[in-house]
């Protein structure tokens, strides 16, 4: 008999934005508002605040022991949904029923105090996560063993390396044994080893018959770990479907859109003249602007710009940089001798410089695109090492049959052959 683990009925969350945009209201604001409000009301003016629905009309049910993926672009409302389910924030409308303790791998290290020792933090953090003291006592040795910090267990955690800190924090969270586990973007933090542990823990939990909600931008992980997924866009639930179908929908409909950035006059330094960047875009195979592109398809990067005057020897190029700041490559539009000769001087006007990163080059993860527009040994007109970021999704890339993140920034499809050598 399968029983319901989570039932969500028409959940909505409204945030107030607009007029007092400042995050912190001051007493003066409130006093002023109180005085102004009746006047506004007399005039028949609307509510003085704008509201946005971060989430609206979400309904779904999950049976106990199921793993459900939640996908959607940044700001689609995934985190808001998780926050509501984790009781961090109240819904504005609708209701949800949750059976059992909700644990989250997002909470890793929540409430850790740098001055306290590893041992003390295990107890404190365990209590914050909702564990009973006897439960922590019972699991203490296991937690220490899992975290591999046993030698430093009586050292204040402020002396820990970040890796040790993360391992200890994760060890506590991993031993919580919640009835419902929420995993949100854990793949974004920590090293490969840590990510492997997270995913491993997650499948353990699922195997033990507990419910898992898995939120990620990493489509291949979602594909590997879940059978069913929700697609959320602009606070609405677009579909609930078997994961391959949902991922396909998400990637093809450009729901992951962002993938572009425009410059306004304010962003451009004065000394950039006569070069004015207008927009940078990341495009997929089909020429659609995307925030997430697939590793197995070519990616197009393009920069649109304006020249106020003719420029001699101009080269416009991209850096590809990892999120840790390592340069992966630098490439200019006039690298090729043919183009170099043809565009020795560019007249004033509007241009687009475009390049293609071939399929099967980049590994999954987030990449940063930098822009450089310069005339060699004359002037660097414009330079922005963080013009734009985009995601690469490894679904279908070599080796995705194994449940593990791959080391390295590249994921080339290499030609292998295996020979059986017989004696």
């Amino acid at each position, binding site marked *: 008999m399968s029983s319901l683990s989570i039932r969500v009925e028409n959940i909505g969350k409204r945030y107030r934005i607009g007029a007092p945009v400042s995050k912190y*209201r001051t007493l003066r604001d409130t006093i002023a508002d109180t005085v102004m409000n009746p006047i506004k009301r007399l005039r028949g003016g609307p509510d003085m605040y704008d509201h946005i629905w971060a989430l609206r009309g979400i309904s779904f049910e999950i049976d106990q022991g199921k793993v459900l993926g939640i996908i959607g672009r940044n700001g689609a409302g995934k985190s808001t949904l998780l926050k509501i389910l984790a009781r*961090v924030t109240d*819904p504005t409308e609708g209701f949800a029923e949750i059976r059992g303790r909700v644990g989250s791998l997002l909470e890793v290290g929540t409430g850790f105090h740098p001055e306290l020792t590893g041992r003390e933090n295990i107890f404190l953090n365990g209590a914050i996560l909702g564990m009973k003291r006897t439960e922590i006592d019972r699991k203490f040795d296991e937690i220490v063993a899992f975290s591999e910090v046993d030698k430093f267990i009586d050292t204040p955690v402020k002396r820990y390396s970040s890796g040790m800190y993360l391992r200890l924090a994760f060890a506590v969270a991993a031993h919580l044994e919640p009835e419902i586990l929420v995993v949100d973007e854990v793949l974004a933090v920590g090293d490969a080893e840590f990510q492997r542990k997270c995913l491993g823990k997650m499948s353990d939990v699922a195997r033990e018959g507990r419910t898992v909600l898995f939120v990620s931008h990493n489509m291949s992980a979602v594909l590997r770990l879940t059978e069913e997924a929700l697609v959320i866009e602009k606070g609405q639930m677009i579909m609930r479907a078997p994961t391959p179908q949902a991922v396909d929908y998400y990637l093809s409909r450009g729901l992951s859109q962002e993938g572009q950035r425009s410059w306004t006059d304010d962003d451009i330094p004065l000394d950039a003249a006569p070069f004015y960047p207008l927009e940078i875009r990341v495009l997929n195979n089909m020429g659609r602007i995307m925030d997430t592109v697939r590793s197995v398809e070519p990616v197009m990067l393009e920069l649109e710009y304006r020249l106020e005057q003719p420029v001699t020897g101009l080269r416009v190029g991209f850096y590809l940089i990892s999120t840790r700041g390592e340069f992966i490559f630098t490439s200019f539009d006039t690298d090729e001798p043919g183009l170099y000769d043809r565009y020795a001087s560019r007249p004033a006007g509007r241009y687009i410089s475009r390049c293609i990163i071939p399929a099967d080059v980049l590994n999954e993860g987030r990449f940063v695109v930098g822009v450089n527009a310069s005339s060699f040994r004359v002037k660097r007109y414009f330079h922005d090492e963080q013009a734009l970021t985009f995601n690469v999704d490894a679904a279908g890339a070599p080796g995705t049959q194994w449940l593990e993140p791959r080391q390295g920034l590249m994921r080339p499809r290499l030609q292998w052959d295996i020979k059986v050598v017989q004696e």
Partner: protein
Amino acid sequence: MISKPEPDTILLKPQTGWSPINLGDLWRYRELIYFMTWRDLKVRYKQTLLGASWAILRPFLTMVVFSIFFGRLAKMPSDNIPYPIFTFTALLPWELFATALNVASRSLVQNSNMITKIYFPRVILPLSSILAGLADFAVAFLVLLGMMVYYGFMPTGALWSLPLFILLAMISSLGVGLWLSAMNVQYRDIGYVTPFLVQFWMYITPIAYPASLVPEKWQLLYALNPMTGVVEGFRWALLGSAKSAPGPMMIVSTTIAIVLMVSGMFYFRRMERQFADMV
């Protein structure tokens, strides 16, 4: 399947109107109260040269200054009790209250990372910071005992009531602490208001002077400050400052303290829903 008792079902729905703090939930998280108090204690005097002796030094140095300027130079009356012990007896609950206000009002904002990530009864944060203040109080109390021996004060028959006055001080601290901490989430002005409020409050509490200095007809109005009742109670229970228990005054102070706490609980509960969105 895991062999576990049937898990509780939690119902999440929009909260409207006024309701008091969920005490059942608080009880379920009682161990967290203990651990948070313990954390505050552990951390409070980390990396300080003098450590926990600050708990003694603060009231002690204040007493020295008060004794010199108010006691010796200004010849402040002190109900025929040696001035140093007269003021120190008042400084003990006062320090408890003042520290509680300072720490509690910041508690939610300081722990915002916990509030935005995980559920627990939020009231645990101000509550545990107030409970941690009791340890400082206990340490300073030993000094008071020493002073009582030095000045030859025998414990009075009213000593039994001292825990009640400590409780009254805690209730007052919690009441004001709940209000300030919840307001601080929304209005950071509270961070600036609190030090001033504490200073102001000290002048309207009979610490450097006896409550008897206030004219008879104003006594009950004066007792609207719950700390007046606490301080007078302390002096009565420990030093036998008055012949009879400060009755009417105590009723007023206690009533106000309870009103503060209950209203604070309602206000806190109402604001609690928005903490994660605003902090």
